[in-house]
Each structure stands twice: as structure tokens, then as C-alpha cells.
């Protein structure tokens, strides 16, 4: 009984800690993510049978890797009547044996190739983030589905389909050449950023659709930085996410109410996260090449300075948003700029920027309506503010934020004209 539990604990730990590395190692050599996952799953089953009897091996990861590899070769042999490529696959596994060495745990870490594979131009941009979370971190389709508000069965099918495409279209696992690299790095950063979610701590509103996976996004960011410490945008993205993470506790009051950024108690911010974020940003600055994610991080860094100075330098934030809008005119950065300019130069100026955004882009974008309501209140345009609050509340999917906006809108009724 206890041998069984011991074996199971060891397997759980090995898979939890090494899942991404094991899958990456197998997938990169076999050029098939789905087959690598199936083989590792079978290896885990085999381990559950064998380890309680034979004892837990010294190097559990190496054992799992060898078992998974064997399973891949067997599968290829069985399919060999149709498979003209078996000799090539076997040659590859021979190389695997030499490189890996059956008992050697120090197998190479191929997760960078996996990150780039997941963000490959032939893969639907909407599936890059789910694929990364699933294939690199081992997060199951059901959890990814909840974070993206998609039916779990649908997410499962989409992941299966994208993995089949990788196999059938023989999508390149190799890292891109120097010419294609910058564009491909952007795609990787974009996918990690999408896992983190964006702007959900802004002054006015939140875009909470993907806020459930912030820790996972940070792990992906750390992974990328470990492989590419000289890439300023990777450092910038990590800094941005760490600044957001620093405020996690402060975003909710003791009773669970939503606390907007400007009302957060700075004593509840995590100093460790802020310091780490600042180190990343300094490292990024050494490259002397500014980019979208460094600007995003710099904006958060200015907010973080409130912990020392007690005030927010809105002019600086406005300037940073100006740069951001030039590099990445997303709906989030346009709304963010309007919020910053409203603080720096008055609600009228902010509202003018807000109203310059095409209405088709803002229709269902909740933060737009929340900021609009906030600015109209400051301008004492009561009826328009009320209309904006109705949409900001109606489009909100976070109960705590909805309650906050409702309390704000209720103040309107207490005004004397």
C-alpha cells in the first residue's frame, strides 16, 4: 500500500516538475506533439504498474523518458506498413539514445523550441496560447477552457486538431533563422501576453476574461527569459506581468470587494515582485531597443513608484502610452492612454481621445464603457454617465467589479443638479 502511494507520489512529482521538458524532448525528436503526449501518458501507466513492485527508480524522469521512447518506436513499427518514414524515425531515436543515455537524467531542455512551435505562423493565432499552456505547462483542456470561456469539449477538439496539423503539415520544430527570428519572438511574446490577460487593473475597468492564468503566464515568461536573457522584450513582458502580480492581494479588500489601482494600499503590494520586475526592466534597457512590452512594463513601473513617492506621475504615464499607441494601437492601449491623459490634463481631453476610437471597436469592450462613465461623472454629465454605466455593468463578467461599478453608478442618484 505505502509502496504504491510512494510510487504514485514520485510519478506525480516527476510529471509535475518535468512534464514540459519530457514532452518537449520527445516531441522535438519525434516531430509530433500528440504522439509524445500519448507516449508519456502510457509511460506513466507503466510506471504505476511497475514501480510499486520493482521499486522507484533512481532517476524517475529518465525511466519515464525511456519507456515513452520505446512506446513511440513500437507505435511506429506497428504502423510501418503505411509509414515510409520509419527508418528516418528509428535513426532519430538512435540519436536520442546516444544523446539522452537511458539512465541519464540530464536530457537537453527543448522547451524553447516548443514555445516557438506553438507560436508558428501556420498555427491559428487564437490557438497559440492554449497550445502553449497545454503542451509546455501540461495544463488540461478543461482548465484552459474555463480561462478562455470556451466549452471544454470544444477546447479539447481544437487542441487535438492543432496537434494533428503539426504532424500532417510537418510544421517546423527548428528555431527560425536570424531573419525570421524577431517576428517569431513577437508571436511568442504575444501568446504569453494573451495568457496573462491585459489591462485588468486599469483605473477604470477590467478585461477579466483571462485573469485565471496569470501564474502560468509568468512561468512561461520566466522560461522564455531563461532561454533568451538578452531579448529586451522578453524581459519587458516578464516585468509587466510581475508588476501586475505584485498587486494581486491589494486588488481585493478584506471582504472581497474590488479595489481599483489608485485606491490600493501600497503596503499590500509585494515588494519582492516589484523588485524583480524592476531588475527585468533594467536588464531590458541595457539592450537599447525599446518595444511594446517594455513600455507596458514601464507604465506599471511608474504606478509602482507611488509606493515610494505617494503620487502618480500621470504625465510620464501619458507619454509612455503615447509611445505604446504608436507601436501597438490596440483597443487596450488606446483606452489606457485616454485614462492617463484624463488624469494628466483633465477629463475633457481624455474623453476626446476616448471618443476618437472607432465605435465598432468599443462596442463590447467593457473597460471603454467603465472609463467613459468615470470621465462623464467627473464632467457632471449625469445622463450620459448613467448610460455608460449601464453598459459597463451589463458587459462586466467579474462579480466584484460589477458590484464596484454599481456602487459608483449609485452615487449619481444622490447628486443635486
Amino acid at each position, binding site marked *: 500500500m505505502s509502496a504504491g502511494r510512494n510510487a504514485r507520489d514520485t510519478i506525480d512529482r516527476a510529471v509535475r516538475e518535468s512534464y514540459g521538458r519530457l514532452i518537449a524532448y520527445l516531441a522535438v525528436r519525434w516531430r509530433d506533439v500528440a504522439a509524445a503526449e500519448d507516449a508519456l501518458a502510457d509511460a506513466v501507466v507503466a510506471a504505476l504498474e511497475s514501480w510499486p513492485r520493482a521499486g522507484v527508480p533512481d532517476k524517475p524522469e529518465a525511466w519515464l523518458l525511456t519507456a515513452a521512447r520505446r512506446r513511440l518506436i513500437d507505435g511506429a513499427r506497428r504502423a510501418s506498413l503505411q509509414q515510409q518514414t520509419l527508418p528516418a524515425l528509428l535513426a532519430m531515436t538512435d540519436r536520442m539514445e546516444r544523446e539522452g543515455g537511458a539512465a541519464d537524467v540530464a536530457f537537453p531542455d527543448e522547451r524553447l523550441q516548443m514555445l516557438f512551435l506553438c507560436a508558428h505562423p501556420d498555427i491559428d493565432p487564437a490557438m497559440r496560447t492554449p497550445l502553449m499552456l497545454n503542451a509546455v505547462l501540461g495544463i488540461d483542456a478543461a482548465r484552459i477552457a474555463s480561462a478562455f470561456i*470556451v466549452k471544454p469539449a470544444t477546447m479539447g477538439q481544437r487542441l487535438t486538431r492543432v496537434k494533428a496539423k503539426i504532424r500532417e503539415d510537418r510544421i517546423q520544430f527548428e528555431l527560425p533563422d536570424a531573419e525570421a527570428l524577431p517576428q517569431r519572438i513577437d508571436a511568442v511574446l504575444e501568446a504569453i501576453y494573451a495568457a496573462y490577460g491585459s489591462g485588468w487593473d486599469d483605473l477604470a475597468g477590467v478585461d477579466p476574461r483571462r485573469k485565471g492564468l496569470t501564474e502560468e503566464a509568468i512561468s512561461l515568461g520566466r522560461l522564455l527569459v531563461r532561454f533568451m536573457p538578452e531579448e529586451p522584450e522578453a524581459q519587458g513582458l516578464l516585468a509587466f506581468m510581475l508588476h501586475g502580480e505584485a498587486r494581486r492581494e491589494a486588488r481585493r479588500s478584506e471582504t472581497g470587494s474590488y479595489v481599483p489601482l489608485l485606491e490600493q494600499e501600497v503596503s499590500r503590494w509585494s515588494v519582492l515582485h516589484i523588485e524583480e520586475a524592476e531588475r527585468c526592466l533594467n536588464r531590458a534597457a541595457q539592450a537599447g531597443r525599446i518595444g511594446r512590452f517594455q513600455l507596458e512594463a514601464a507604465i506599471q513601473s511608474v504606478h509602482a513608484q507611488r509606493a515610494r513617492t505617494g503620487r502618480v506621475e500621470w504625465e510620464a504615464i501619458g507619454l509612455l502610452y503615447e509611445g505604446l499607441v504608436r507601436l501597438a494601437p490596440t483597443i487596450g492601449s488606446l483606452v489606457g492612454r485616454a485614462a492617463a491623459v484624463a488624469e494628466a490634463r483633465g477629463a475633457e481631453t481624455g474623453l476626446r481621445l476616448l471618443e476618437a476610437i472607432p465605435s465598432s471597436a468599443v462596442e463590447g469592450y467593457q473597460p471603454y464603457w467603465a472609463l467613459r462613465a468615470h470621465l462623464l461623472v467627473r464632467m457632471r454629465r449625469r445622463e450620459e454617465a448613467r448610460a455608460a454605466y449601464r453598459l459597463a455593468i451589463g458587459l462586466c463578467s467579474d462579480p466584484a467589479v460589477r458590484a464596484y461599478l454599481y456602487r459608483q453608478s449609485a452615487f449619481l442618484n444622490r447628486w443635486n443638479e
Partner: protein
Amino acid sequence: MHYTLLFFESPEEFAQRKDPSQQEAYLAGWTHYVHALRESGVVVSGSGLYPPETATALRRRGGETLVQDGPVTETKEQLGGVFVIDVPDLDAALTWAARSPVSAVEVRENLAPLK
């Protein structure tokens, strides 16, 4: 594509409808949500429902019809409203479901109308 959003409410949520201290916030949650739905042009039809204790259930057993006070199933969460929306796909329907003010929503695709 037509999808039906079935809004389920807990006993506490149904109680908020009548509690003077919570009524206003409860109703505001609904009116703002329904307003956003209508404003976006996706609503085909829909309505909130009176609470389950006002329901009347009919059951047929062996050729006999039994009429009962209360809902068909005595589950903790009960139907509190129904909306049919016209959106491109299930992802879009789920996005709308996520914005609703109630604690549980079921989303189903509507069958094509019978000929």
C-alpha cells in the same frame, strides 16, 4: 445561430428579489445585463421568470394527469430566466453567458425550427 441561455438562481438569489436591502442591486444587475444584450442586437426573445414556488407542474402518469404546485425538479438552483440570442457561434454565446449576474447559466444551441 440561435442559442438559449438558461439562467439558474440559488435560493439566496431568489430571496434577494424580495429583500428590500438587496432588491435594488439585484434588479440593477439584471436590467444592465439585459440592456447590454439588447443594445448589441443579439436578443431574439427572452424574459425573467417568477420564482419557482409560483410554478405549476403537470405530470402524466399512466394516462392520468397530476397537477402540482412548484417546479418539476426540486433542485437547489432553479430556472430564473431564459433568453434566446442570435450569435455567430458557441464561443460568442458563452461570452454573453459569462456576463450574466446570476451564479449559474446553461447554454444550449437551439434546434432548427420543425417544418
